[in-house]
């Protein structure tokens, strides 16, 4: 079955109908305010990696302090985002901003994985450094730029609904 037909079928489901016709403001509101827990938490880790804040705290302390809230935040974003997608699946699929948002999300995920696999296991040597080494700073800055792009594309996508 082609994607568009599959998305049409998705929009015929009960859950799609409920979100579209009544729950949308609440789910969308949760999605927007969930920014504070997801991007709003990862931003502190990124800023610490860049060396822009909390320089006297170990990187591990900043990460561990926000980790749980951040993961809860990203779960919340994924669930509410999926529900919003189901409500307007075809329009989302056709929107250039939605496609850009998904692309930026994937890039942010890849950036986090690369950082985790290559740089992060050496954290112990610069955990206390006020300004981390260049590779870590690049990873932090890349993350900040990508998440800001996700927010921008997500907000602009709302105009295609």
């Amino acid at each position: 079955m082609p994607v568009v037909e599959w998305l049409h079928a998705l929009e015929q489901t009960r859950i799609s109908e409920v979100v579209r016709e009544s729950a949308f403001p609440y789910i969308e509101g949760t999605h927007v305010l969930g920014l504070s827990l997801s991007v709003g938490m990862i931003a502190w880790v990124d800023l610490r990696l860049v060396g822009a804040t909390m320089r006297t705290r170990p990187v591990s302390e900043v990460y561990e302090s926000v980790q749980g809230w951040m993961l809860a935040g990203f779960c919340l974003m994924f669930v509410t985002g999926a529900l919003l997608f189901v409500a307007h699946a075809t329009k989302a699929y056709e929107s250039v901003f939605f496609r850009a948002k998904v692309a930026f999300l994937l890039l942010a995920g890849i950036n986090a994985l690369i950082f985790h696999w290559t740089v992060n296991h050496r954290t112990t040597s610069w955990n206390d450094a006020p300004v981390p080494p260049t590779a870590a700073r690049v990873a932090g800055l890349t993350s900040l730029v990508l998440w800001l792009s996700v927010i921008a594309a997500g907000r602009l996508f709302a105009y295609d609904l």
Partner: protein
Amino acid sequence: MVWSALQPVVNWLGGSALGVWLGQSPTRIAILFVVHLAGLTLLLGGTIVMSLGLAGVGFRSGSSAQLAREIGPWRMAGLALAIISGFLIFTGGALTYFEGQWFRRKMTLLLIAVIFNFSWFRIVTNAPDGRFGPWARRLTAGASLLLWFGVGVSGRAIAFF
């Protein structure tokens, strides 16, 4: 009474060259909304971190006053971004926004949140350790979260209700 006293200012703002120029273009408003969301993320994310510090959750090294010094400037930058972009968004549709119940609720809550932030919240956050008991600190953190997220929730409600 207070609101009707502001009506002439709102009329002037909406009819000003800036108000007309902003109101003409959905693109300008869309860009301002992106800035507004970026500011919201920084402001609410910073509020969460400072509240966690006050409640003694995470950020173990250093006092809540130190954490406030590290986070504060970023959080205030977020507030400034949100207020400046918000003011411009309002200017682009002043008369319509001004009539809205949720807009008025949001502005009332924002005023309370700002006053609370620069009085009691600042006193408790900057107090030396031991000056306030754990429950006073937790309640202050909770009140701060409630107020700032209340501003966010009523902001989202402007779009829908």
